[in-house]
């Protein structure tokens, strides 16, 4: 036991004098350093791939945002088109309004024409009455002429009875008779003319009736046109309502799109923050690489130092 103890003591003395444990530590540190470097290579590779992936995500994000922008532009275009539609509707309304104004003027003209027709009808009635009075007067004239003729015949008869003394009277009676005949003939001509006037007046009356009927029809058409205009206005107002609804939907969509873009902006900010951290981690990695080199440079000097200390070549 003592022998063994003595042997152990001798061995321990030898170990204490040796710097082998330091060498062993240096070797171990070196091995750890190598392992650490391998891990660092793997970590940096992984970090690089993460960075690449995030760069890809950012690119896709940019692409997506561009698409969102396009979509936003489309909405703007729709809104603009809807606005143009509104303008067209306004123009229609204005045109309808102008047309309605003109229709009112036309209606007023019709009214004036109607009044003129009424006045003409009254005048025509007066004319008819005057014609009848003329006809009655002509009848009286013809009657007077016939009586005058009878008187002339009677005077001729009386003149013939009177003989020579009544010859001059007979001449007068013949002239009176001739005059009465001419009056009768003239009255007949006048009556013919009056009848002609009456016939043409009746034709005029007929034409006026036709014109009035046409006027009534036109007035009716104007009336219906007015209704059409009102319908157009109503439809236009309806279209306005639809346009407002479209604009409302677009507005809501744009708000939602804006919210979506803000959401992606925030995500992008977050991504960029991650990329920034990856960059920082990567930069730190590169400084670690320099430190590994420094560590390696220092550790690698330990074995030759120990060999030098121990006097080994």
């Amino acid at each position, binding site marked *: 036991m003592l022998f063994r103890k003595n042997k152990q003591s001798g061995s321990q003395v030898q170990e204490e004098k040796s710097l082998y444990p330091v060498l062993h530590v240096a070797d171990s540190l070196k091995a750890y350093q190598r392992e650490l*470097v391998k891990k660092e290579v793997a970590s940096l590779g992984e970090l690089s791939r993460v960075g690449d992936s995030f760069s890809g995500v950012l690119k896709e994000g940019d692409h997506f945002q561009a698409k969102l922008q396009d979509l936003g532009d489309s909405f703007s275009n729709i809104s603009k088109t809807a606005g143009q539609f509104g303008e067209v509707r306004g123009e229609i309304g204005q045109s309808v309004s102008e047309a309605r104004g003109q229709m009112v003027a036309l209606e007023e003209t019709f009214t004036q024409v109607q009044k003129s027709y009424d006045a003409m009808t009254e005048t025509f009635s007066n004319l008819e009455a005057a014609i009848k009075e003329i006809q009655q007067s002509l009848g009286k004239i013809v009657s007077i002429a016939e009586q005058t003729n009878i008187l002339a015949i009677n005077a001729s008869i009386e003149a013939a009875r009177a003989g020579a003394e009544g010859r001059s009277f007979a001449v007068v009676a013949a002239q009176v008779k001739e005059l009465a005949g001419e009056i009768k003939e003239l009255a007949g001509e006048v009556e013919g003319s009056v009848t002609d006037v009456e016939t043409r007046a009746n034709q005029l009356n007929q034409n006026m009736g036709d014109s009035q009927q046409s006027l009534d029809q036109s007035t009716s058409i104007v009336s219906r046109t007015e209704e059409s205009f009102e319908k157009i206005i109503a439809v236009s107002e309806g279209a306005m309502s639809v346009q407002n609804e479209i604009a409302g939907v677009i507005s809501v969509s744009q708000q939602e799109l804006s919210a979506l873009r803000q959401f992606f902006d925030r995500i992008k900010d977050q991504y960029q923050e991650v990329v920034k951290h990856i960059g920082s981690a*990567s*930069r730190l990695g*590169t400084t670690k690489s320099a430190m*590994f080199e420094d560590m390696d440079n220092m550790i690698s*000097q330990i074995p030759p*130092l120990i060999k030098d200390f121990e006097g080994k070549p």
Partner: protein
Amino acid sequence: MKQFFGMSQRGSLDEALQGLHQPQFIMLLSNNDQFEAHVAALEKRFPGVPSIGCIGMSYQTGIVEKGVGIIAFYDGVTAAANVLEQISKMPVRYIQRLEQDMQAVGGSSNDTVCIDFCSGNDACVLTTIYTVLSKRGISLMGGTGDQGRVSANGRVYQDAVAYGLIRNQNGRVKTYKENIYHQLGDYRFIASDTDRANYILGSLNGKSAKQVYKDILHVTDEEILTRTFQNPFGKLNGDDTCIISIKEVHGNALACFRQVNDSDVLILLELGDYQAIVQETIRQIKQDFPRRSAIFSVNCLFRYKLFSEHGYMQSYLRDMSALGNHAGFVGYGEHYNNRFVNQSMTCVVFE
């Protein structure tokens, strides 16, 4: 403080040192053949003055390609220089040197800067150095020299980083990094199957790195090497981008001029309006520092080649000289705090 620049296209150190008196910190930019001799001669000429050096081209208003250039600070700086060795394995073994120099120089983030010339394993070196500098918030700028050799305080080292801690006694200091590239497309890759020791980039997002590069830019294997001037990779580090140049095709992988790690996040870059970007840097420096004592910069070799091919290098130096006393060297990689980058310009401005 003041900055001195002396040079000799034929490699005469004496010629380069003409006019330099009582320097407080010296940087030697030499050539492969004369480096050791220049280091020794410089130490002999100015013994005890903190100095660092490397093999590389220097510039002020013109380029010194194969001669020697001297950039020195004097009249108002506190400086210390030293070296961390065995940087391919364990630069941290010498970290106490830097901590002691920090204590000696004092200073803070506002008035002190660390300038380094490194021979390789830059990322590990910068990580190690920055564990100390970051405690006081002191900035670092520097670059990689040629031929795997640097010097500090009169001695040449291999597999080492030479550093100088410079404290401006009369004003502020600030470092800048200029990137003349911007992101191409929105490609983003996670690196894997990397070999950090050999700067191999195996896969991007699990696919052959070479094929990914070819497919995007429609280039052949042969065209990949020259295409890096136009389209290097960018390694993301927080908000900063570190440029990674492509060195060569390695099977289905790409070998780079900078370590790439599993889990690094890379992007593809393309050359921007570099003249406008340079003017913007100048404007920014003028805004930050209405009064400037000196500007020391490191320009990538690839930038030097690109600017030279475009006939802009001389104009560039002329533009930068508008800032005042500007000098620097052409590096094989640029250092900015704990970041090792390619195809960039880093500089420190002294108030």
